């Protein structure tokens, strides 16, 4: 087979993804011309930054074949921590650093419980998420914190623009570029993948699998804090359920991306997040009531998982029977 005719792996899927994006954007633009206005595109990119940051950490957790259901609670706790510090007049960077440390700490608790003590991931993260969500109430007994937000400069994070787009979007692109390089071009990333693919053989190949599982949870805690910082900047107040809306879009972003591009990866998550954010934003722009949005995201997630998963298996099946016609008896085919 001539080498130069082969396209990069997943190229067809990437083209399919672009066509899907064009179709969705075209449909929204037909219904509501404002969809393509620079104002709306700027809003899409800002929301994408929020959803994308939360989904990035989850991507790593999913790559090591675990689930994290706690990051929404972690984000709520970090939001109130940051809000509390801002209200008490600390510098913004101190507030954000402490918030990140709080997120890392909860992630570390998850990571130690799951990787060192071997506790089941779903149960443990539901518990820690619930605890973190409860702890969010400690600072103000559940009241909204808004003092000093105007003067602290956090609002500027939302308003600052480069070339007409929010700074947060460029931050997202930068952090995804770093993540892509680390996850898909270095041996550290390969170790994450190996930990997920086959922890036993990864361990015997010299990968400290427990460390990588631990790191995935710590990073997941921290990226959810970054996401909630953007939410705080947009709303200008800190509320106890500030991070609750991160869960659905993050899961949808990771798994829709994986379904579209044929595997969990940093770029797949970016693609999935882009599509989900565009859809959510488009639906709210054309005036679909808020209570439909979760249903729409869920339906798309489900459709993506079902359709693409089936197709992968069919393709794989066809390919294997084509390449290995005589290697096994026909009736043993699945």
């Amino acid at each position, binding site marked *: 087979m001539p080498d130069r005719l082969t396209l990069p792996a997943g190229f067809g899927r990437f083209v399919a993804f672009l066509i899907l994006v064009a179709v969705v954007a075209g449909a929204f633009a037909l219904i509501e011309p404002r969809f393509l206005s620079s104002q709306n595109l700027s809003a899409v990119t800002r929301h994408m930054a929020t959803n994308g940051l939360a989904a990035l950490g989850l991507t790593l957790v999913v790559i090591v*074949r*675990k*689930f994290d259901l706690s990051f929404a609670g972690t984000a709520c706790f970090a939001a109130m921590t940051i809000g509390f510090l801002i209200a008490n007049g600390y510098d913004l960077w101190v507030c954000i650093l402490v918030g990140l440390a709080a997120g890392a700490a909860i992630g570390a608790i998850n990571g130690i*419980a799951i990787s060192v*003590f*071997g*506790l*089941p991931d*779903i*149960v*443990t993260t*539901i*518990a*820690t*998420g*619930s*605890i973190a*969500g*409860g*702890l*969010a*109430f*400690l600072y103000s*007994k*559940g009241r909204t914190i808004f003092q000093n937000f105007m003067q602290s400069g956090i609002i500027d994070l939302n308003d600052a623009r480069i070339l007409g787009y929010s700074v947060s979007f460029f931050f997202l692109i930068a952090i995804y570029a770093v993540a892509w390089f680390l996850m898909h071009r270095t041996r550290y990333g390969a170790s994450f993948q190996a930990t997920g693919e086959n922890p036993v053989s990864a361990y015997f190949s010299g990968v400290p699998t427990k460390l990588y599982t631990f790191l995935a949870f710590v990073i997941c805690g921290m990226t959810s804090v970054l996401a909630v910082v953007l939410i705080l900047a947009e709303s200008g107040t800190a509320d*106890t359920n500030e991070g609750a809306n991160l869960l*659905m879009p993050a*899961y949808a972003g990771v*798994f829709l991306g994986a379904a579209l591009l044929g595997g969990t990866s940093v770029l797949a998550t970016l693609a999935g997040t882009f599509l989900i954010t565009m859809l959510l934003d488009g639906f709210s722009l054309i005036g679909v*009531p*808020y*209570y*439909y*949005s*979760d*249903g*729409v*995201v*869920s*339906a798309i*997630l*489900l459709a993506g*998982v*079902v359709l693409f*998963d*089936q197709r992968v298996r069919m393709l794989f099946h066809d390919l294997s029977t084509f390449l290995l016609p005589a290697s096994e008896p026909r009736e043993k085919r699945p």
Partner: protein
Amino acid sequence: MTEVMTDTAARAPTERQGHSGMLSSFVGRYWLAVTLFLMIAVFAWLRPQILDPANIVTILRTSALMAIMVLGLTWLIAAGKIDVSFMHVAALGNMTAAWLLAGGSGWTIAALAGIAVGAVAGLVNGFLVAVLRLPPLIVTIATGGICASAAAALGKGTSVRIADPGILGELLYVSWGPIPLIAIVVAVVYALSWYAQEKLTFGHYIFATAQSEAAVNEAGISSRRLLLFLFVFSGLCSAIAGVLLAANLSSGQPMIGNSYFIDGLTAVLLGGMMIRVGKPNVIGTTTAILLLSVLVSGSAMLGWADYQRQIIKGLLLLLGVAVAMRASRSPSAHATGA
């Protein structure tokens, strides 16, 4: 990735039990029940009115509704799958019934429609997980989101008032002394479920499915059909609880699911820390539900805030998982396995 509770029995070596082994086995098996009695004793000492017949009726009634909702979930998690859509299925059953009642239909139709919606949701979950072999967590997150959205859409985002709670509403408030009728019904249902789980091969296959679906298939039982049944059963249980809640609250509440998510999972998973350590079972679930209800009632009397209870529940869940894992690693744990 799909296993929810770790397979504990397989890991424990079989050794002869010593005296301390018996003790740690007992603690491992019954600590939840002991905690329940200690908690009742402490609350009764601090606030004697928790033992008022009226309060006991309230505790038992809320426990009974919760118990109906998570009966199917218990077996699903025992079979190594998870269903995080159960509370939204309950909300959808609840809103379907309330919406039909508000539209003028009778209680029979409304209740049956609410329950049927739950069966459909369970069938969809079961088809996607058992037949198409998709990951249960992702599938049920998505179907749960759709159900929650549909429930909210039925009431256009707000609750639906029910003028007449009907005969179901009356039956829910029938009680003899401190025992409400619904608690007796649920006790009978749970006794039958216990029988099915412990004495019939059905129960063995549930626990075996968590260990190896291939082995269950080799034994001549279709694990696919078993899982499909369990998902439909879970949908039915949730929807029945949702319809009963509609009668109990005289309204359809689209957001009702959110308050049951943590509680339902905590009940099942804490329950899995008892008797069959590491495996959800109906007796454990009952004990854990009572524990949570007593905690809610007692802490309300002590004036604790909602978030404090949330932290305690989370800690309890974490502690329960840790204790169960520890117990399962001690040599005696094998005796508690199936």
